[in-house]
């Protein structure tokens, strides 16, 4: 194992912890030092809980010293996206409206992390209420991509992916409503999975779009991702949409990494015009590696995917407009008195607080959603979008009758520069064109690095999609591909990420 504990994978750390060659306090402290050294440049974290993390680490060390048998990842520290409720730790969702809000309860995912003994390093940055693909919509300033600090780390979960990619955490939790785990993984050279909808509890995940949101694992290797996936997943009676079935055998699949005899479908509609040449080149090479590893590759058509983005931007804002109504300054969160009003009514305080507390992207989507649900427009917008959603699910069903998994580039481009798409929402939304169909259909998807694009030397990602509840297939294919790529590269892609220690912000 690397002598720098922050460079080790979670798998390596877990092994070393189990062998008692290293303590959780040492591992946690190493990451806290790394955060102190580089996060000023990256800004992956909104909140660091050094004290809490070290206390949890000490507890794990004590239990291990006492001879207790501990779960695999016990003692391996982790970062949590700031959209998950953490008891006693601020949870802002990247929004001014929740500045300083400390939940009185843990999200189920967070509770499971604590129960399995993973010290929580802190909360990671994100686009406000997970609306965005760049973290530029965070009320607390953007996160920077460790590959190029002038570029976006993806979004909305840019903080989690950047934390993992800059060795500020071996593992992180993300959430994915339209690609917020997979697209940041792609542009930071890391790995991330959106599990099957219902595979991981949403209890305590501050909802953006309830029917699309899904929490998932972020890490630097496919196996690490699988280990975290296994900790997070499983039925939760507190979430009605949680699936009451055994967790797919993701860890076993990741360890085996076997694609021989599997059928892999390349989605014709995801990868043509609009995709950066370097992204396409790395994708094509990755597909060839799968063929060499024994997979059968064929092209598959999913014609309704062309309407996915349009449907998504009706369903998401509709649900979000309702989910975000609770932020009204009455019970918690930012409260602002309206200017020039002597004796404001509750309604006036609500309006002023929402005006001050929400950023422009959040307001844009609330307005879109409110409009789409309005009487007289409901059928034309929300109703039609739901029909498209059904068609997309049918496209997946037909495709999975022919193949075991589908593949595509994760995002059409590598990381773009800050500000490039901020004033053009459509251009920003197009970043998620390949990831959105999986959310609409509820199927699982993974992104892993496919290499660096020739034109800019930045990471590109390949996306793997599987049928609902067959998450293990992502890991079979992902691990096989990762092995082939690592062989070719002579190490993980992230071994090539610039060192940040003490170096100035890299110029363009």
């Amino acid at each position: 194992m690397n002598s720098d504990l922050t460079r080790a994978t979670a798998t390596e750390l877990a092994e070393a912890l189990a062998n008692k060659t290293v303590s959780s306090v040492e591992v946690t402290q190493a990451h806290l030092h790394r955060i102190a050294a580089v996060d000023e440049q990256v800004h992956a974290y909104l909140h660091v809980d050094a004290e809490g993390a070290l206390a949890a680490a000490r507890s794990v060390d004590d239990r291990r010293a006492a001879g207790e048998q501990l779960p695999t990842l016990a003692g391996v520290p982790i970062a949590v996206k700031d959209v998950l409720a953490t008891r006693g730790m601020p949870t802002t969702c990247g929004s001014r409206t929740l500045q300083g809000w400390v939940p009185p309860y843990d999200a189920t995912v967070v509770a499971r992390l604590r129960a399995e003994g993973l010290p929580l390093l802190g909360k990671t940055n994100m686009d406000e209420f997970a609306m965005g693909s760049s973290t530029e919509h965070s009320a607390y300033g953007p996160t920077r991509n460790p590959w190029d600090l002038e570029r976006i780390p993806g979004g909305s979960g840019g903080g989690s992916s950047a934390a993992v990619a800059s060795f500020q955490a071996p593992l992180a939790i993300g959430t994915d409503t339209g690609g917020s785990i997979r697209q940041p993984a792609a542009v930071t050279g890391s790995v991330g999975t959106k599990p099957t909808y219902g595979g991981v509890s949403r209890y305590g995940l501050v909802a953006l779009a309830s029917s699309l949101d899904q929490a998932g694992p972020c890490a630097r290797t496919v196996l690490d991702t699988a280990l975290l996936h296994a900790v997070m997943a499983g039925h939760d009676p507190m979430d009605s949409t949680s699936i009451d079935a055994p967790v797919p055998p993701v860890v076993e699949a990741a360890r085996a990494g076997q694609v021989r005899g599997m059928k892999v479908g390349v989605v014709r509609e995801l990868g043509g015009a609009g995709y950066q040449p370097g992204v396409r080149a790395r994708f094509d090479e990755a597909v060839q590696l799968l063929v060499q590893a024994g997979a059968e590759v064929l092209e598959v058509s999913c014609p309704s995917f062309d309407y996915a983005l349009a449907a998504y931007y009706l369903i998401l804002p509709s649900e979000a407009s309702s989910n975000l109504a609770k932020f009204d300054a009455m019970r918690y969160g930012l409260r602002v008195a309206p200017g020039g009003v002597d004796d404001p009514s509750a309604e006036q305080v609500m309006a002023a607080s929402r005006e001050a507390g929400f950023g422009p992207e959040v307001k844009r989507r609330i307005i879109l959603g409110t409009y789409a649900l309005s009487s007289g427009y409901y059928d034309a917008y929300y109703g039609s979008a739901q029909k498209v959603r059904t068609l997309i699910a049918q496209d997946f069903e037909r495709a999975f009758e022919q193949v075991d998994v589908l593949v595509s580039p994760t995002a059409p481009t590598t990381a773009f520069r800050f500000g490039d798409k901020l004033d053009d929402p459509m251009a920003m939304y197009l970043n998620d064109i390949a990831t959105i169909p999986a959310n609409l259909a509820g199927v699982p998807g993974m992104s892993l690095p496919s290499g660096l694009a020739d034109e800019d030397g930045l990471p590109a990602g390949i996306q793997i999609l599987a049928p609902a509840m067959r998450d293990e297939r992502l890991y079979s294919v992902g691990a096989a591909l990762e092995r082939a790529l690592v062989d070719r590269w002579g190490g993980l892609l992230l071994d090539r990420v610039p060192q940040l220690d003490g170096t100035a912000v890299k110029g363009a």
Partner: protein
Amino acid sequence: MTTTSTSTDEVMDYDEAIARFDPVMGLEVHVELNTATKMFCGCATAFGAPPNSQVCPVCLGLPGALPVVNATAVESAIRIGLALHCEIAPWCRFARKNYFYPDMPKNFQTSQYDEPISFDGWLDVEVEDGAGGTEIFRVEIERAHMEEDTGKSLHIGGATGRIQGADYSLVDYNRAGIPLIEIVTKPIAGAGERAPEVARAYVSALRDLMRALDVSDVKMEQGSMRCDANVSLRVRAGDGPTSAAQLDVPLGTRTETKNVNSLRSVERAVRYEIARHAAVLAGGGSILQETRHWHEDTGVTTSGREKSDAEDYRYFPEPDLVPVAPSRERVEALRQTLPEPPAERRRRLQTDWGYSDLEMRDVVNAGALELIEQTVALGASAQAARKWWLGEPSRRANGAAQDLVAYAAQLGFAPADVAALEGMVVAGRLNDSMARQVLDGVLDGEGHPVQVADARGLELVQDDAALEAAVEQVIAANPDVADKIRGGKAQAAGALIGQVMKATKGQADAGKARELILAKLQ
């Protein structure tokens, strides 16, 4: 906006209003279910707990919290639907009703919209037929759907107790998330002048039904049953309210009167709105579609917020919940649990017990039906059971502002006690006055009837010689009264009986004393 509870609205004389217009009603009744926990979380539902003591992240709508449907509430909803002769949806969803209000934690109410769990039913209600009997009026049910209650606001300061003009407001979220069933009628036409009476009878029949199903406390004064009354008028046509010509006339604009929280208020509010609408329409005005607030004290309604069809709740299916899909077998199993319909049961019991209509009404109004039924089952006569339950226990329950069943239960006073008391009367151990003393003792917590009678030494004097001695003594002491009786005024014996009872410390049989007095003086 109007903020006064005394209205200056003109009203037309009711008879004249009915002579000129045909009233149509729509009643929306909210019933709070008596489940132990809330609709979507595990919080307790007890009434009267300290404010905000029965809350959790779910019912407070904290960020990230999610609802889970209460299976017992769904069961109650299905039973209510079946009892109202509704169809039960094999598959239905919850929907979000979106609007902003401080007592709604999420600023949407999780309700049902176009997919209610039950729909298309009816409930027969009894109204007086004007000839001393009763007549059945069928009220058709549009739907009965599940939803959650909101929190409760208390507006401090200001003249009206409403949010407008208040200095500040307090919100208690204990009520937020309590399971509700909203029962909506189809337009109720054809009632004519009896519309207010039909409205009251309908709400009353619903209340009885909920009690029989044991799904709700249905205490209107505590808000566990609430009624909103929609009223509209249309011009008279044809020869009577049920004539085809009348039913063909399009409905007029309606108002929705809220806050109608007693049976009496339901009747009064409907009657008031009919008279008010009539005055507006007769004066050439038009009715504004709006919410009206009922004022129990002054007996009028005042304008609330305007409510038009333009108000948009942006309903959409609740994505945090999965559909409710009760199997046919489950529905049929629940159908087997339905009680005998209250009206049928009342008719059966009245016949069995030989009560007059008036007696039956008193029993029902006192909430003593079940108590009497159990007492009779323990051997007491129906008349005696009615007499005892409607006497001191009812008086004391009223005094404690409790319903009779709750009062008796709290006291541990059971039908068996009444049966034992009556048993001692029948056996000749106690006379009526002594039995009343025993009852007082039981209600004062001195023990069971036999214990109280023993402890107080209450036992009829069976010794004829002792009684005769007392009678002679009293006659001797009251020669003038005795003369009156001798002169034929038998009713004067009462004064002597009283003295005999006094002399025997109440332990004499008054009937026997009367016989003796009359025998000696006539």
